[in-house]
Each structure stands twice: as C-alpha cells, then as structure tokens.
C-alpha cells in the first residue's frame, strides 16, 4: 500500500458563474521515501493538490488514502492529529509566528501533542542543530535571513518526527545560495532520515534534486517520471 494514494481528485471552485476546475481528476500514488518534485505553470493546481495532500483542504470529490487512513471521509477539524504526527509543512513565505523566537516556533507542534516542556526544549534544540541553527535559537524571525527562517520552518516540520514533508515553493523567496542550502538539507532529510518529501517548484534546477518529477497542467497530471537527482551533492552539514 502506498503512503499517499489519490484517486480521481477533483477540486472545483465556483467563482460567480464561472466554474474553476483547479484539480481535474488527479490520481497519483507516492511511496515511502520518495523525493517528489511537482512542476507546472502558474494556476495549474499544484498548491491545491498539495493542500489536499496535507489535510489542509478537502477535494470536491475523489478519494485520498494517507498511510491507510481515508482522509476524504474524515472532517478536517478531526485531522489535526494527523497533521501533527504525520505531516510537516514548509511554505514559500516561511510562515513562522513573528512574535516568538526560533526555538519557540520549533516547539509549537509539540505543544499541541502535549510533549512535556523539558523534552520539548530538547527536541527543538536537536532539530535546530540538525538544520545548523542552534546558535540562533533565541532570535526572532525578523532577526534571521530568509534562508535561516526557512531552515527554522524545516526544523519545525521535523520536530514531531513526521514521515512526510510538504514544501510549497520553499525556495521561492530565496536567492541561489540560500536555495542550495535548503535543497541540500531536504536531500539529507530524504536520504538519511528517510523522509518522504513532496516539493513544488518553478525552477528546473531545484526540481533536479528530486528522485521523481510530476508535471501539472490545467489541473491534471501531464507527466510523471523517475529521475536521477543530478544536482544532489554529497550532503554535508559543514557547508551550511
């Protein structure tokens, strides 16, 4: 059984009397440990697809089985636990909570699964170390560079040991150097920790890091190929 299994997903928005088919029958299966890049023109439904996969949104119709759970049959508000334990999110705009420090942001998911304070702190620190930001733990988001903020967000997605990471254009706001840092990190998470990563990007260079490339167009899957990650360098934390 696949980790992620979608059958004929449709997402239809009614805007006035215009019907927008953001997803028009998407069936995709993703196995544990894959590193999938999703590409496609703007408006082709990539984000819509990922939001459904991440249990943030519901499809209009179709089924989605996540790790054996029929997510489409469950109310979104009941999926908080699933989002907490199985899924980590990384967004283009980082989406850190601005008033709180890096470590507090990383601790947040553990507050919602009732991890004791001491353990929360320890695991958050470990996650920050894993992304090379231990010495910035007590900085506020606006005291960090874009790449650093994104790494905090990645640390946050790791901290509950979620097996899947969804990243919607994680390098969209970053320059080339920072993008490489972040992509190296993803590669490492995929290879060393066995995380399943699904990543949306517009840049072919970034897509090159993945082991599989899915292309979208007009709400449908255009192509779906296994590839050898060419850009992936030997992962090394020292470079970060």
């Amino acid at each position, binding site marked *: 059984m696949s980790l992620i299994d979608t059958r004929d997903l449709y997402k239809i928005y009614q805007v006035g009397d215009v019907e927008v088919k953001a997803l028009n029958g998407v069936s995709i299966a993703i196995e544990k440990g894959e590193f999938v890049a999703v590409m496609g023109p703007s408006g082709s439904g990539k984000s819509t697809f990922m939001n459904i996969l991440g249990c943030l949104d519901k499809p209009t119709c179709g089924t989605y089985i996540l790790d054996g759970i029929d997510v489409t049959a469950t109310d979104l508000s009941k999926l*908080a636990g699933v989002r907490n334990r199985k899924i980590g999110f990384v967004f283009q705009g980082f989406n850190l909570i601005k008033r709180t420090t890096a470590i507090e942001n990383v601790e947040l998911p553990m507050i919602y699964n009732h991890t004791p304070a001491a353990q929360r702190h320890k695991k958050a620190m470990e996650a920050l170390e894993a992304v090379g930001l231990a010495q910035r733990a007590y900085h506020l988001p606006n005291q960090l560079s874009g790449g650093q903020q994104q790494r905090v967000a990645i640390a946050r997605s790791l901290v509950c040991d979620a097996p899947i990471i969804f990243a919607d254009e994680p390098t969209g706001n970053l320059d080339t150097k920072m993008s490489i840092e972040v992509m190296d990190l993803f590669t490492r998470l995929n290879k060393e920790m066995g995380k399943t990563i699904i990543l949306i990007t517009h840049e072919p260079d970034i897509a090159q890091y993945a082991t599989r490339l899915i292309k979208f167009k007009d709400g449908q899957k255009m192509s779906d190929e296994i590839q050898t990650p060419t850009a992936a360098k030997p992962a090394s934390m020292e470079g970060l």
Partner: protein
Amino acid sequence: MIDSFLAVFKISLKAIFANKMRAALTSLGIIIGVAAVITVLAVGSATKKSIADRFSNMGTNIIFLRQPWDLDESISSPKDVTMDDVVAIREVEGVSAAAPYIQTSFDVKYKNTSVSLSALATDTDIFKAYDWSVDKGRSFTEKEIASYAQVMVIGATAAQTIFGDVDPLNKTVVLSNIPFTVVGVTKKTGSSGFGFNIDEGALIPYTTGKVKLNSGWQSSNRRALDRVVIKVEDFNKIENTKVDIQNTVRNTHHIHPLGKDDFQLDDFASFVEQAKSTATTMSLFLGIIGAVSLIVGGIGVMNIMLVSVTERTREIGIRMAIGATSWNIRLQFLVESVTLSCMGGLIGIVLGVIFTLFVAKYMSLSAQLSVWAIVVSAGFSAATGIFFGYYPAYKASKLTPIDALRYE
C-alpha cells in the same frame, strides 16, 4: 497537559503584551466596572450600617406615644397624654419600660459659667428605656418625683463642660432662676441619640419640669406630657405589643369603641427599615451602573478579541497546519480574553479598595470592604472574559486551515 496549558498561557500573555496600549484601553472598561462595583457595595453597606448604628442607639424596640400634631378635627374632646397612660402602659404585657418625656432647653448657670443645655423632664424608667445608667451619685427617688424636688441628673459631657474638674455631686445649678441640686452623673454613652443627647443634656423629674418650669407643649395642662417613651421586650413582637398599648390607651382615654384614636404610636422599626431600604435602593442603582460598565467593558474585550482573531487569521492557519485542534485555538483565544479581563479585574479591585478607603476616610464611614464583593467582582471579570471571549474564540476555531492560511 499542564505543560501545554502553561505554554498556551504564555502564548496568550505574549499576544497581549505585544499590544500593551490596546490591552490597557480594552481593560479600562472592566477596571472602571469592577472598581465601581466594589466601591459601591462597600460604601453602600457602610451607609446601611451607619444608619442601623444610629438608630440602634435609641433602640429599635422603642415606641413613642404622643398626641398627633395634626389631630383629626372630627375628634371633639381629645385627651392629653398623661401619667395615667404611663401607668396603664407599664401593665401591658411585653412592655419593659414606659417613661414620661418632656424635652426643654435651659441656660444652666453655675458660678460664672452659663451653658445652654437640653433637659429631659422624665422619671427613672427612662434609664431602662434607653439603657442609660448612673455613673456617679444616684437617680431620682419616688419621693423626689412626688414632691417636685429640684434635683438633676447630668450628662457626662455636660458635667465636664460646666464643672470641669470639680465634683458635680451636690452642687447647685440654676435653671430659669430655680436652683437644682445635682444628684447624679450619667455614664457616657458616646453616641448622639435621636432628638436628645444624654451626654450633653440633663434629666429632671417630670413633675418638677411640668409644675415649676412650666415646660411642655401643653403648658396649660399641668398633667400633659409631650410623649411617653415605651420600650418593648421583644422587637419581633413589637406589632402585637403596639396593638395592646393602643387598646390600653384607648381605655384610659375613654374612647368609644367606634371612635378614632386621639393619640398616635410611632415606632422606629419601620423608619429604620425605610432608611435601610433607601440605602439599598441607592447601592442597587449604583451597582447597576457598575454592572453596566462591566458589560460595556466586556463588549470592549469582545471587540478587541474579534480584531485580534482577524489580525491573526494567518497565525491561526499556521497553528492548525502544524497540529492545533479547534479546541486548542479556542482555548488560546479564551485564555487571552480571560487574561485580559482578569488583569482589568485585578487592577479594578485594587482601585476599588483604594477608592473605598478614600471615601470611607472623607465621609467618615466605617469602611466595609467585603471579601465577598471582591471575590464576586473577580469572578465576574473572569466570567466577562469567558462570555465575551467565547464568540471570537469560536469564530477563530471554526476557520478551515486553508482559508486561515490564505487570508491576507
């Protein structure tokens, strides 16, 4: 679980302190409301107590018998209140004392001092009626009363004013050119009674007052008394005793069974009740103003919480994306509004206490800060936070994660 709650609490505090000015202004309504409620309750109960104290000095189980000032014209030959009534009333069951009462004032001369003094022409039952007692010397004797003796029992403060350090006993003072011998000094009561203050007054036999000093309203009638002061044994039976007294007096006045009373009986129970109920109405009214201000404050909290939910929609989305349940979100905003209103409540309590002490000091009321009022206002401000915070919190928790995240 506790850890998580503490964490949520910390998050809420941070959110509140991120907007100090706003938090302060929002709490203001609650602060004013709570301070008002505490002050009003405290001052209200102090007023009530001071009314009660003042009346209890002359006793609420006192009844006055007197001729009405506006006597019904249809009564052809009204009888004056006399010692016959006093004697008859003393026999009524439930009456513990009945004393004649004629109040006058005189210039009292002793050597070179002359002091204006209030004097009560009465007999010894007045001590029982008003719980007065003789400190030095003695009271009048039956014989002195019967013989129009020129004797006087003087109040403690009056004795001090007239005699200074000299022992007043057996000294002679002059009232309207008639010499009186001081036979006793009363014990200081320390309270100004109603109408007559014994500490600053003097007592003389009613016979002497009536005959030799010609005092009283009905000076033409040598037997007429101004009033009779009656003390009943049991305050709870005052109404029954009053009826018995009424029948007794009708009897001594020979009133026809169908005739109207030519006298009236006043008791203070109803008077005190009325004064107290006025004070209660006053505090109720002011309390309502306080409560309204609390509600307005609560609406202010609600308003700010709604703004806060809107402002932080994206934050709510982030929290939901990383695993916050609807309940977590609701709890966070509820804790925030309760914290906000409780901080207001706390400041309000402090202000209310200060204000009460201030009012108590400048209005010379004994401060009656009730723990009860403080507990209730604290509870009420927390309840305000929950009540007015619930809707914004509910609204926040009902967002779907994607709508919250996409919110601009």
